């Protein structure tokens, strides 16, 4: 499974982006990521998840997952990134930072 991740916006608007192939990760970390993707039912999500609140200076995320010939991209605002989404984005941000 390959996951692409991008963050934009926020007060400082410093872009954070990265891609991870779960095969290149330690097995436990790889399993944790694919578990999160499956729990979110990622391939069934709409391509744009709307903001549930107003406000300003929040982050905007774009996630793309490729797995077994399927590819799907989801764009979502920080306000919608709760629960498993928050965990997935947290892991990917940490990985993107490690890679930079």
């Amino acid at each position: 499974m390959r996951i692409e991740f991008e963050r934009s916006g926020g007060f400082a608007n410093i872009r954070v982006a990265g891609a991870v192939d779960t095969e290149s990760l330690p097995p436990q970390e790889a399993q944790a990521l694919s578990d999160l993707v499956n729990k979110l039912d990622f391939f069934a999500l709409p391509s744009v998840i709307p903001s549930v609140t107003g406000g300003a200076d929040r982050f905007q995320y774009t996630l793309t997952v490729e797995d077994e010939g399927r590819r799907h991209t989801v764009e979502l605002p920080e306000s919608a990134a709760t629960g498993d989404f928050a965990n997935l984005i947290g892991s990917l941000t940490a990985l993107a930072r490690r890679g930079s």
Partner: protein
Amino acid sequence: MTHHNPLECIIPPYVVEKVAQNGTPAQKEWARRTILQSAQIRGQRQAVADMTQRGQRMAAPARDCTVFDCGTGTDLPGTRVRGEGDPACNDPNLPDIDEAFDGATLTYDFYKDIYGRNSIDGQGLPLVSSVNFGINYENAFWDGTQMAYGRGHEALPPAERLFNRFTIDLSVIGHELTHGVVQYEAGLVYFQQAGALNESFADVFGSLVRQYKLNQTAAEADWIIGKGLFSSNINGVGIRSMKEPGTAYNDPLIGKDPQPGHMNDYVNTSQDQGGVHINSGIPNHAFYVVSRELGGKAWEKAGKIWYVALCDKLTRVSQFTDAARLTHEAAGELYGKGSLEQKAVETGWKEVGLPVSASEGDKVDLSGCTRLVGGLAVLLLGLVGKRALTRKK
């Protein structure tokens, strides 16, 4: 009377905004009208709500700032740590509590003393700020009801830090609070040019709050937004420069400040809500030039013109050319047509590639006259026609 179109009620705003971005010219026009119409409905609701609240409140409430601590969680507002009348924390390990409190009170006082505004909504709304939001959270935001600030990377080992705490600079606090003011006034949609204007107003008044605190003239001010937010590992003075957009930072780790200061360099992007933090450099620089031209304290005249335009003239869907035209109009009303102040506004927008015609104001008057003459003609024709009909009887 409001024409009620049920179709427009069931289409979520983000879909309309996507169409406004990606549609054909006809679809874009539909989206523009839809957004404008819902803005008008929202305005009517707001006006009614304002009147109701005014009736209920006998005396204007006084300043009411409170700071909460999220304890690195993301549930707002968190635990109350300081309110009006409480002593300062004076804890060197938790400077953000006092910074958030002092920043909110200074911004409230700035709006009250300079523009006669009582809080974010103009009616004494309590100001809620939360600090210590999230883990290593490198951001500050306005969530539609309150301000929130991360501690950046201050908990990481010094060599790994990119960001300091987001309360470190008063301009950030003034910026976040102003997003609230924008929400209650023009209500600029947080997308593309309207969103970049929303951002720019937040930067303008964020910078002015710090200039007011330091009693600086336009020439003395640094016009940096988010000064000192970067750690010493990053080559940058701050996040944005209103004086020289695109020069605030340049670093191998995070790249270069992408802000344009002229329409020739306008950035089309889907990131960052259509570049709201990028293209804000253009109206930011226009405001800087107006302030430079006028000299003295920028909040007195340039700030007043921008404030009046924000409250009385701009709408949810205003674009850069609208902001240019409407600040020019506001300057004419406040200081006179052809005044030095109005000429400074012309210079400001001209320098960023958005010239406002000097005859713009006159053109509006002319069209008003044409409408008046046309209306009278219709009225006369109507009367003549009616007499003719009466005679025929």
